[in-house]
């Protein structure tokens, strides 16, 4: 609406803004596609029983490596992952594993060479290991504190 009104006064700004928007859209379309594909596949193959088996409260220690690896390997803007995580949460995924997944998104493998350039290999190795360990702690703490008052309803 703002762009429409602005277009009457200064079409150049609107066109520049649209160009940026289209550039971002083009850049993010592949990851949007991947996330939608994952959402589709999860609805097709992941029933609540399966989610509970590997990522629910009864999964035990099985869910942790999955959450850590998935967080590290996930790419693209975090907004794209919220619907999938909300869907998995509705199917029974533990809050701890969701928090661990989100925390491990901070470990970005493609950017490690840049970090090593600025800070050195030893520091990057120590930092990465600590972040992975703390991601599990983060998950456990979040789950403990959110379940204290009986959890909460979410939109998914």
């Amino acid at each position, binding site marked *: 609406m703002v762009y429409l009104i602005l277009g009457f006064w200064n079409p150049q700004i609107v066109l520049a803004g649209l160009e940026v928007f289209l550039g971002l859209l083009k850049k993010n379309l592949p990851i949007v596609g991947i996330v939608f594909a994952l959402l589709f596949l999860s609805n097709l193959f992941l029933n609540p029983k399966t989610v509970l088996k590997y990522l629910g409260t009864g999964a035990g220690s099985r869910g942790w490596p999955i959450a850590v690896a998935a967080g590290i390997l996930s790419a693209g803007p975090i907004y794209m992952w*919220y619907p999938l995580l909300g869907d998995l949460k509705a199917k029974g995924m533990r809050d701890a594993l969701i928090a661990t997944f989100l925390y491990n998104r901070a470990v970005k493998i493609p950017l490690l060479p840049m970090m090593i350039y600025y800070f050195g290999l030893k520091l990057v190795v120590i930092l990465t290991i600590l972040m992975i360990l703390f991601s599990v702690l983060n998950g456990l703490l979040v789950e403990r504190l959110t379940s204290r008052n009986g959890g909460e309803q979410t939109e998914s």
Partner: protein
Amino acid sequence: MTSYIIGGELLKNGVSLVAVLAFIVSWVTVGTVQLPAESLMLGRKFALLRNGISLIMAIAIAVLTVLILGIFG
């Protein structure tokens, strides 16, 4: 990516490693801009707790990293 570049430059200009690491870790783990979206999809309590705990952990990780680096450096 931006946080690494800024952190690197801050380090070159004399800012302590603990401060720089805490800055970088909190930049990548704490997301206040996406709080509304996270709250909507995953619950407000979850979103606030996760980000709050991540903020505190950023400092802990920074201190521990420097300590361990000092032992093995």
